[in-house]
């Protein structure tokens, strides 16, 4: 037993080493950096939690926190709701099943940067598709969507929803296909209509899948960077600034590594907290039924 256990650890060792070197190491390093003032102009200096204290009074950082949270809530809600609908349709779709599923997954397979450039053009003020569809040849009525706080925010959320709904759909579809047919037939035999079967048989059974979709999307959405970097760079006037982009701005263009690291650590802690919360919800109540 003892040697078996040791062998188990031996097998785990490479994975743990890689995790340690590429995951825990950088996180620890970022945390250590966040406790310093680290600029190119002076030797690195330990300042304790000062960077975090400054962060709490930094209106730009708080503004980007606000939009990050708004982005997470709205885009995840739309993606999971949309994903559920898509999954329900795909679950019943028989003709050309493989092709249809591949088509639905296409946005997810596309690199985010490419998708972001595409959406930037779609919302372009001079020749964007949105303007062409809404106003046709009336060029003078064309709107600069990305110059309005609301328009820019909506554009970024829409781009994310377009891209990630299919991912949520995929997870939920897997859950749907695991629903035992007998249960649905039994419900039908008992006289339950389609709506009741959905609400009282399917939904409770796919709850874990939905929660997993919510969890994955939430963590991913919290780390949004590429859409903002390509589409708006935080404009107009910081309305679409998100935490990750703000941290990047502090670290790379401005060379404030300690301060930028503090932003990154906050994003990490937010994601960790949400994951733990979601793991509890998913892990204990539903999967251990």
């Amino acid at each position, binding site marked *: 037993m003892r040697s078996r256990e040791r062998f188990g650890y031996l097998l785990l060792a490479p994975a743990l080493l890689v995790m340690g070197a590429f995951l825990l190491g950088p996180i620890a390093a970022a945390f250590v950096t966040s406790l310093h003032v680290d600029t190119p102009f002076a030797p690195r200096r330990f300042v304790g939690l000062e960077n975090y204290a400054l962060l709490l009074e930094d209106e730009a950082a708080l503004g980007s926190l606000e939009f990050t949270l708004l982005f997470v809530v709205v885009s995840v809600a739309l993606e999971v709701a949309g994903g559920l609908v898509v999954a329900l349709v795909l679950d019943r779709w028989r003709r050309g099943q493989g092709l249809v599923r591949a088509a639905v997954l296409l946005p997810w397979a596309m690199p985010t940067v490419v998708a972001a450039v595409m959406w930037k053009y779609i919302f372009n*003020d001079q020749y964007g598709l949105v303007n062409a569809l809404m106003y046709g040849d009336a060029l003078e009525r064309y709107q600069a969507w990305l110059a309005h706080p609301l328009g820019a925010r909506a554009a970024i959320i829409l781009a994310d929803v377009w891209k990630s709904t299919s991912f949520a759909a995929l997870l939920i579809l897997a859950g749907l296909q695991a629903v035992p047919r007998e249960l649905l037939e039994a419900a039908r035999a008992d006289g339950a209509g389609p709506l009741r079967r959905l609400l009282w048989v399917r939904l409770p059974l796919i709850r874990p899948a939905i929660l997993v979709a919510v969890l994955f999307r939430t963590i991913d959405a919290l780390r949004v960077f590429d859409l903002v970097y390509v589409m708006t760079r935080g404009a107009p006037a910081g309305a679409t600034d998100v935490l990750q982009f703000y941290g990047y701005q502090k670290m790379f263009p401005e060379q404030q590594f300690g301060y930028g690291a503090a932003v990154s650590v906050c994003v990490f802690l937010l994601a960790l907290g949400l994951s733990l919360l979601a793991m509890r919800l998913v892990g204990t109540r539903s999967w251990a039924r």
Partner: protein
Amino acid sequence: MAARAPGGLGTQPRRARSARGRAALWLAALAALASGAAGCGPGAEPPGVVTVRLVVWRPDIPEAWERALALFHARHPGIRVVRELGPSSSSELHALLTQKLRNRDRSVDAFIMDVVWAAELALAGWALPLDERLPPAERERFFPAAIEAVTVEGRLYGVPFNTDAGLLYYRKDLLAAAGLEPPETWPELVAHAEAARAAARAAGLPGAAGIYGYSGQFRQYEGLVCNMLEFIRSHGGRLTAPDEPPALAAVAFVRDRIIGGAAPRGALTWAEQESLEVFKSGGAVFLRSWPYAWAVLQDPAQSAVAGRVGIAPLPRFEGGPSTSCLGGWSFGIHRASRHPEQAWAVVRFLTSPEVQRLFAVLAGKAPARRALYADPEVLAANPHFAALRPVFERAVPRPRSPIYPQISYILQRYLHAALSDPASDLPALAQQARRRLERARARLGR
């Protein structure tokens, strides 16, 4: 990839030994590959040849670079220049270059630097002082502002390559049709733009309804700072004192009369490329841009308005000076370079009259050397340089500070907020920006 290899080991416990053997093979292969890659570097050179690595942006006219480097290699058989091409956007190139310099990356010997970077690169100890190499008598051959931009605390850290300054491009045909001259003042520009558009519509010019009055760079990025510096300074204001009345009035003018007035609101999302796109397709009466736009606008293959464009100094406000933002690039040498002498030979060559002439003729770059403004070849390709020399001579630098990127970001956010909301509370925003500027400066010392 790295995560997969050890995972493979773990999933095949019984064949662990052979897997380990395979891993060793892989490692050996990797090592061979790495040494091979190193072989392509300095090791692979013929003896006596030194490679100078130069970080520079991806050029829009590659031919000029190829010609210059061919010339250099022919004259300096002992030096090989390898360019590392970075993004053409100044801020993105800055992020890349500072990363390399911060890591003391030995593969960087020399680099191109934007006019606003010198203080940072010098104070961080990344750029090599060049005082002894470029004596004062030589410095006088360049525009003083360009030399001043690369001088930090009395020491020289770069040699100017080209100079840039904001210019006003206008549609000669549209102004002539309305019987107008190029505007002297900003309010005049707004009025001229309106009159020229009205005349174009009255004459039934095709697409006249879609012509804007003014095109410029108002996206939240570095160019916004340049554009607004020109408005604010030409009203007697200061960029770093945004809450003073002259600066406030200039910003209010842009917000009320330019954005959503002479220019569409979409200008808030335009950088150089978008603003030039609008103008060169015939979509605007006026364009504020840099000297490079001339070559593009005069090229019938790229421009629908070739031959119908005029150039003038930027307008001013009543009682203020016409102001152009100083731009331009210099070459510096990495302090950690192992080949400073060879790097200097490259920098000296690239900033020589010969190469500056080449870039002026082939790429429309305005030379940083003053004598070239009387050079027949340069003037034949760029006839407007003669009249615009005073503009280049007087161009106004952006704030000089080692934390310029922070200053710029604070200004960008303030200016974009001020311009994008027609009902913005300007004095409050400006005071907030000023407080942020002061806070950033106060923290520099720590």
